[in-house]
Structure formats: structure tokens, C-alpha cells
């Protein structure tokens, strides 16, 4: 894992001081709320329905045991004993007091953490593959590149007031586990003629106008990565629309300007910037890489006794092949039947921290699917791990199953939401657990957003649900056929929306069509792509 040196620590400490000063000036009346709002947002502090909400950055989703323990302590000390893991691999606390926020930031800084740029019209926390460094199929660990970009994007003097927020994801395998092409910039580390470089995809996104990012450069040499990123951002800062908040994301610029013209301007700016000394020395990337070297994997048993069927099911569903054949990556589901997706109590966080230390080289990851993964677990340790998880209600065997629902906080917490998301996810997971169909559906990614901003990634769900406000009453649209993986596609709306009870029925009806129509080995998404929308519409509205 990356470790701060004195410089990183100085920067984060200076930020805590700055924020403390800003809060004091706000409370003293030197800053109006209009002036203070972007400053608190750049420190992750929102004003939501019930209180201030704080979003803490978890760079590329990676946490040490000690960091996870502090996240638990913060939940107890400053909040109400729980936190919510988000679709951008961060954690949010829902009940923060403005007057206590600077102390909270200082506590985070003690374990090399912060809330810098987790909101605001700036470059947000860089996300990555949650199996980075463990995946059997990766070219290299993508996190050193994400860390390089984290440093470049933190406190960037030119890009703090972009037209709109800006999200970057970095991956390094052909399997996309980070929704890379649905980011403002998606970067894939690739190999060409024996050299590593970066493919740049620019202008993807979800939200009001979902778009899949086009590739604008298939190979940027590693010693020009920051410079190329800077060129992409400068062209956006210069020309991105500022007249309409809903058209201000880079996807609209790339779309309206055309990918070709945008690329031409980026290349021109890039050629200029190459002489400007923007790029850190390559030795810096080498230095960062040393923090992400493999832990000392040991050979051990490659199979485990699966005579307990419950354990066998968990192993089958919640563990993923590792690059070392004596290990797996083990997913801790934060999606118990009827639970709140992504929420974890402080006690659960402490336990996950301890398990990370005991079983996974002191490391865990937040997944964008709002689960936690222990990346390097010895196969021989799996039963002990599963037993400990089960006792804490964390052993749900439902990775990528219908119960593994992504849901944004929705109208229960969020001031932007039009409808509640969590109750819908609770009812769906309970319905499919009670009727037994959940176990027959296989991989089915269900994603729920409470408004068009799409924090719940509904466009990218095999089944997506979008909550809308219909004359003051919650209403839910159903979407089918999205994917955030390497076969990226955008889901399409089935037709008129449903009320709260109706949407749960509609999801079951949709699942029934799949169960009826599927052919051997087909996932829900495969069947949908083969048979199209019509049979589903017929069943839903016919």
C-alpha cells in the first residue's frame, strides 16, 4: 500500500488547517454560505436532508486495517455508529456537525486519510479495479498510476473550478471492473511492443445524459501520463459549457465538439505542454510502484473442504480467482437480505479491519458495488474467514446476484433525490429471498438511483431502476440491458413507471421472463441482448 512521506503528510495537514480556518471564518460571518459552499464541498462536506454529510476519500478503494479501524472510530465519535460505502469506493457519514468537522479531518490525517476533493467541480477521488494487485487477468497493478494521478489532481491550482465535477478511473486489464468507460476520463494501462502505456477514453458518464467514452488515444507513454491528462483537462476547462449545469460535464463537450475535434485540441495542447515541465520525473512513478509490490505470497493448499453446503455456496459465489493459485480474493457482502446496501456498523468495520489484518496482508478494498473485498486470502483460511463473517452478519453469499443491489442513499438521506432507493432494494432482496428465485437467476446486476444523477448507476444495470417525482409521489422507471463491464452498454427504459409496490412486482416479472426464455449458460444480460425488449414489455404492460 502507498505510504505518505513527509510531503504528503504536510499537504494533508495544511489542508486540515485551511479547512479549520475556513469553518471559523464561516461561523464568524466572514464567509457567506454561497462563498463557503464550494470550499466545504471540496472537503467532502455536503448539507443533506438531515445534517451535514461527509464523504471521505478512499483512493482507488484501498484501505489498511488501521485505516478501516479509524473509519469505525469516526462513525462512533462523530456520527451515529455507522457509515455508507459508496459507488465511487468512498465512505459517507450522514450525521456530521460542521463545528466538529475540522477535528474529524485531523483524525483522518493521522492515518493518511482525508476528504479532499470528494465533491465540488474539481477532479474527484481516482477510482480503480477493486481486485488490483490480485486479479489473475491484470497486465500490471493499476494503482501506481492512480496514485500518480491522485497527487497530480490534489490541489491542482488550475482545475479547482472546472465547469463540473470530474471523475477518473484507472484499470489495467481487459476485464473492466471499474466502469472505466463511464467516467470523464477512463484510463486503461496497456502494453504495446513491450512497453507500458495508457489508453485514454474521454467523455463517458452516467447522469442525465449517459454516454460511453470514446478512445481518444490508444497509447500514451508512461512518462507523459500526467502531461496528457493535463491537456485533456485544460481543453475542458477552456471550452466546457458553463451556461447550463446539466450540459457542463466533459461528455457534452466531447459530444458537441466531436471526439475528433476535441482530440485535435488535446493533442495540440499536449504538444505544447510537453515542453512545459508538467510531468513528474519517471523516478516518481518508480518510487510509487515500490509501494504496490506483491506481498510475500506463500504456496499452500489450492482446494478447501466444501462439505458444508453453506460454506461451499459462499466460496463459489463470493471468492474470485487470484493470480497466485493458493489464494483468492474474498468479497464481504454488505447486502444482507432486507439490509441497506453499503451500510456497515462500526462493529462490522472493526471486524473487517481485523480480518484484513489477519487474513489479507492488512489490506481491504471498497468495491464500487458497495461491498468490501479482502484481496489476498489463503484458500486454507477461507473457512475461518467465512465463520467470522457469518457471526457478524457479513456472510451473505450473493456477489453479483440479484440481492447484491447497488442503491444510492435516495430520498431517505439525499437532498437531490426524488424518490427513495433503499426501501426498493430492501423489498426486492426480500422478495427474491422469500420466493427462492434469487438462487436460480445467476449473475444479475440490479442498480437503483433515486434521481437522474445516477449515483446508483441505473443506466449500467442489467436491470436498472430510476426513482422520479411524479406530482409529489414517488414513481419508479424500469430499465433493462445496461452493463458497466468491458461490454459497456446503456440500459433502456421499458415504458411507463411504477409505484413502490409495482416496481418490485415488475422486477419479478422481468426475472420470470428471463427464467422462461434463457438458454444454456445465458446470464440475464445475454438473454436480454438476444431476445430484445419486446418480450419483457409484453409481460410488463401487455
Amino acid at each position, binding site marked *: 500500500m502507498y505510504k505518505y512521506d513527509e510531503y504528503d503528510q504536510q499537504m494533508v495537514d495544511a489542508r486540515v488547517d485551511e479547512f479549520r480556518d475556513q469553518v471559523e471564518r464561516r461561523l464568524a460571518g466572514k464567509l457567506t454560505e454561497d462563498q463557503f459552499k464550494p470550499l466545504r464541498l471540496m472537503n467532502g462536506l455536503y*448539507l443533506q436532508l438531515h445534517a451535514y454529510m461527509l464523504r471521505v476519500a478512499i483512493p482507488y478503494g484501498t484501505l489498511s486495517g488501521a485505516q478501516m479501524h479509524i473509519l469505525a472510530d469516526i462513525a462512533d465519535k462523530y456520527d451515529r455508529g455507522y457509515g455508507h460505502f459508496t459507488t465511487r469506493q468512498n465512505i459517507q457519514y450522514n450525521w456530521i*456537525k460542521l463545528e466538529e468537522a475540522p477535528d474529524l479531518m485531523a483524525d483522518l490525517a493521522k492515518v493518511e486519510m482525508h476528504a479532499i476533493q470528494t465533491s465540488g467541480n474539481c477532479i474527484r477521488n481516482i477510482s480503480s479495479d477493486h481486485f488490483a494487485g490480485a486479479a489473475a487477468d491484470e497486465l500490471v497493478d493499476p494503482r501506481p498510476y492512480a496514485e500518480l494521478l491522485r497527487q497530480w489532481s490534489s490541489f491542482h491550482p488550475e482545475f479547482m473550478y472546472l465547469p463540473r465535477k470530474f471523475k477518473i478511473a484507472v484499470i489495467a486489464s481487459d476485464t473492466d471492473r471499474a466502469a472505466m468507460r463511464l467516467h470523464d476520463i477512463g484510463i486503461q494501462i496497456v502494453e504495446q511492443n513491450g512497453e507500458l502505456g495508457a489508453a485514454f477514453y474521454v467523455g463517458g458518464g452516467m447522469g442525465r445524459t449517459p454516454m460511453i467514452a470514446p478512445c481518444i488515444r490508444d497509447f500514451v507513454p508512461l512518462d507523459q501520463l500526467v502531461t496528457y491528462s493535463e491537456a485533456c483537462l485544460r481543453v475542458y476547462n477552456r471550452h466546457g459549457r458553463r451556461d447550463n449545469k446539466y450540459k457542463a460535464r466533459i461528455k457534452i463537450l466531447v459530444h458537441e465538439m466531436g471526439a475528433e475535434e476535441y482530440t485535435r485540441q488535446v493533442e495540440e495542447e499536449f504538444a505544447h505542454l510537453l515542453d512545459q515541465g508538467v510531468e513528474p520525473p519517471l523516478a516518481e512513478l518508480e518510487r510509487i510502484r515500490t509501494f504496490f509490490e506483491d506481498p510475500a505470497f506463500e504456496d499452500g493448499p489450492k482446494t478447501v473442504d466444501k462439505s458444508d453446503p453453506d460454506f461451499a455456496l459462499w466460496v463459489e459465489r463470493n471468492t474470485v480467482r487470484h493470480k497466485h493459485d493458493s489464494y483468492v480474493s474474498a468479497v464481504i457482502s454488505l447486502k444482507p437480505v432486507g439490509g441497506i446496501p453499503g451500510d456497515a456498523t462500526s462493529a462490522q468495520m472493526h471486524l473487517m479491519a481485523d480480518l484484513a489484518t489477519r487474513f489479507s496482508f492488512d489490506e481491504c478494498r471498497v468495491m464500487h458495488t458497495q461491498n468490501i473485498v479482502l484481496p489476498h486470502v489463503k484458500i486454507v483460511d477461507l473457512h475461518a474467514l467465512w465463520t467470522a463473517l457469518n457471526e457478524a452478519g457479513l456472510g451473505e453469499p450473493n456477489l453479483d446476484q440479484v440481492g447484491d443491489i447497488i442503491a444510492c442513499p435516495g430520498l431517505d438521506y439525499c437532498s437531490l433525490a426524488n424518490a427513495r432507493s433503499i426501501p426498493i432494494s430492501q423489498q426486492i432482496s426480500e422478495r427474491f429471498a422469500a420466493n427462492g428465485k434469487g438462487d436460480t437467476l445467476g449473475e444479475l446486476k440490479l442498480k437503483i438511483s433515486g434521481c437522474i444523477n445516477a449515483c446508483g448507476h441505473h443506466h449500467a444495470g442489467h436491470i436498472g431502476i430510476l426513482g422520479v417525482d411524479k406530482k409529489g409521489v414517488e414513481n419508479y422507471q424500469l430499465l433493462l440491458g445496461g452493463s458497466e463491464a468491458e461490454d459497456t452498454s446503456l440500459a433502456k427504459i421499458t415504458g411507463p413507471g411504477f409505484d413502490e409496490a409495482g416496481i418490485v412486482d415488475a422486477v419479478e416479472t422481468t426475472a420470470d421472463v428471463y427464467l422462461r426464455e434463457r438458454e444454456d449458460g445465458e446470464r440475464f444480460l445475454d438473454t436480454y441482448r438476444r431476445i430484445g425488449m419486446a418480450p419483457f414489455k409484453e409481460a410488463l404492460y401487455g
Partner: protein
Amino acid sequence: MKILTGNDLKTGDVVWWDGQGWSRHVEDAVDAGDDAETILAREEAARRVNVPYVIAAELADGVPRPAHIKDRVRALGPTVRPDLTLKPADPQAIDWVI
């Protein structure tokens, strides 16, 4: 009726204008009538409450009930965590929201 709401500047608590000050309980909210804008400007300037605003409500069983579900969620708390609402012991409270 028109009632005033916002969040306490320091704590973020949801608060309602009760005629003299800000209460955490929507039951205490009073009709601000024509004085709404004056009160909002004064209270915001005094930095007691953050971004206060006026909303429509109606009296139901003697209690002001905000017209929009968003403000009813604010008045009670998250419907998915009754234990964290202002009425953890009242299982019917969520029906008032929805």
C-alpha cells in the same frame, strides 16, 4: 400555511421556525404568513440557520404537515432507520411521511 425550515448552521440539525426561534420538531412550526421573507433574511444574516427556506404545509391533526415528501422525510428522519428518527418508539410515524 407557510412554514420556515433550514438546518442549524453549526450542527446541521433540521430546524423549524416556531415564532421565537428554531425548533427541531415540526410540531412547533408556526405559520409565518407574510413575514416569511423578512424572518429568513434576518435569521440567515444572524448565522443561526443555514439556507432557510419557506415551504407549504397544511395542518393535519393539529400538526403542520409539509406538502412535499422531502420535507416530511426531513421532519422525521430516514424512513429506513426508524431508530434514528425523532420518533423511534412510534411505528406509525413513517406513515405520516409517506
